[in-house]
């Protein structure tokens, strides 16, 4: 197992290099310069001032030099200082945003798996019935509705019309003074809408996958055997079929991350949640190169780690992997 783990981690190194290279190339080849965005047109700023700013940010060096310098720093998780006028280290900026995005996505992920797996199994066992069709339409509706539109409708209905739920943000004003319990309750209330929107949107992929895996497993010989032995259908499905169908689903865990993180741009913007997606969008618009590059690298890195975790879980669950091909 350790051997397997070590191999997997070693294999991540070239991937990490590739990630940094693609990030660097994509961002640096774009037209425009951050110095320009910073000074905009507002002042009577001289060419000399701009040159000073260029040097200040090291933009006057050739590209490959910039890449190597940057890569060395990235290796120590130092992404430099933001081009925004606050000049804060990018790592600080990301660090204060990442917990929000990650916890939101993890909650959404747990809900997604918690809902999609039973939905998929149910659809598979009720294949081609009205239930199956209804579920199919329902999960695809979640996928098909534009996130920001659904979010606005829910905000309007539950926030303004009914007044049940807070509309945006994470905390109510004055929540600092609440007891710990009501502070947490307040936070949960704020999370209901964004988490529901995120979960609803992601049900389709997983539940359909679960359904088809389940259908496939059900037709396997050993299931037929189990049935032939006269076991109750319930036992067959949940004891035998489900266990085997769940295995491949584990690998999906890691791959769900980039989609969720990417989608966070939209719902963090609409729900005014100060997460990484929002930060990225602002960074992109302001051409804050170090920030954008930092978030791209960290986002991809998180996915790598997610995949690693998923693979490790898979290996634990399925001994063939770690012994055989590991």
């Amino acid at each position, binding site marked *: 197992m350790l051997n397997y783990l070590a191999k997997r981690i070693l294999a991540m190194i070239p991937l990490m290099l590739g990630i940094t290279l693609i990030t660097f190339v994509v961002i640096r080849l774009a037209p425009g310069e951050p110095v320009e965005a910073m000074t905009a047109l507002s002042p009577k700023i001289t060419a000399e001032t701009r040159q000073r700013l260029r040097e200040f940010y090291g933009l006057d060096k050739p590209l490959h030099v910039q890449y190597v310098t940057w890569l060395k720093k990235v290796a120590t998780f130092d992404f430099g200082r933001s081009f925004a006028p606050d000049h804060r280290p990018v790592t600080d900026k990301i660090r204060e945003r990442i917990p929000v995005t990650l916890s939101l996505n993890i909650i959404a992920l747990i809900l997604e798996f918690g809902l999609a797996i039973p939905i998929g199994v149910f659809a598979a066992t009720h294949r081609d019935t009205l239930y199956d069709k209804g579920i199919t339409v329902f999960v695809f509706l979640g996928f098909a509705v534009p996130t920001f539109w659904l979010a606005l409708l829910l905000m309007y209905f539950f926030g303004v019309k009914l007044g049940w739920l807070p509309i945006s943000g994470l905390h109510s004003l004055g929540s600092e003074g609440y007891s710990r319990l009501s502070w947490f309750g307040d936070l949960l209330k704020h999370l209901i809408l964004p988490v529901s929107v995120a979960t609803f949107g992601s049900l389709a992929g997983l539940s359909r996958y679960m359904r088809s895996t389940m259908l496939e497993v059900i037709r396997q010989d050993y299931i037929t055997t189990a049935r032939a032995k006269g076991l109750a259908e319930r036992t067959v499905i949940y004891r035998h079929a489900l266990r085997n169908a769940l295995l491949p689903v584990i690998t999906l865990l890691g791959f769900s991350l980039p989609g969720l993180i990417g989608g966070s741009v939209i719902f963090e913007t609409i729900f005014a949640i100060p997460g990484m997606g929002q930060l990225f969008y602002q960074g992109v618009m302001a051409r804050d190169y170090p920030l954008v590059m930092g978030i791209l690298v960290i*986002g991809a890195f998180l996915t790598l780690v997610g995949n690693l975790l998923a693979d490790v879980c898979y290996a634990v669950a399925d001994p063939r992997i770690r012994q055989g091909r590991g």
Partner: protein
Amino acid sequence: MALRESWFYTVFWRRFRHNRLAIAGGIVVLLLFLLSFLAPYITTWEPGAIDAYHVLLSPSPDHWFGTDELGRDVFTRVVYGARISLKVGFVSVGIAVAIGTVLGLVSGFYGGVVDTVIMRFVDIMLCFPTFFLILAVIAFLEPDIWYIMAIIGLTGWMGVARLVRAEVLSLRERDFVLAARALGASDLRIIFRHILPNAASPVLVSATLGVAGAILTESALSFLGIGVQPPTPSWGNILTAGKDYVEFAWWLSLFPGLAILVTVLAYNLLGEGIRDALDPRLNR
């Protein structure tokens, strides 16, 4: 080959026909094509006809879906928007399928170092939150419809590449390919004559779902203000224009919103239907 074709028409169609949802999806997709081709005959308004003195009128016999914030007919814009949304869907998926197919073929057919390099590249691309990449590139270039389609395509080919590669690997050692090779067929001939046609079905499914995804991506970009630009109507930008008035000028968001929803749903049901009908494992 003849055998395969007859299989297609009998088995595939027999299975597909029984899937009502997929049929419904297919019909919607066909209707959309009709709608976008016949747009000028369906509505008498012009999609760009501004009327600054009649903005945000509610639906009426004159304006079935009301008017927008510049007094343009929303029904007309939604109908013409179908053209753009379909264009975005098809062009970007076309790009993704082209890249994915070529890389998948090369990777699977030649194997070795080429395969390793391409597959590592796929792994790397799959690690990025795709929407972040799209956002960065579009914002740094400009929100031009061609850039949007290109970048959606350039970030969406990895699935296709993997599918095609897997298909190639399973076909490479099959009898008919080995036979062709023994008869001295060139690589290109083997690829085009024998492997591509067989790899087509999984790619078709993935493309159908990709169209739906591209339409959604465009609407998300529009929400951020960097989607298809005015005055060209896309469902995404009509919906975005309407988002500030959900309670008061509901018609401006409801109709494009429904258009996106129904279309994406239809493509998904259709894609699923094709997949099920093609899946040899799902014998009834």
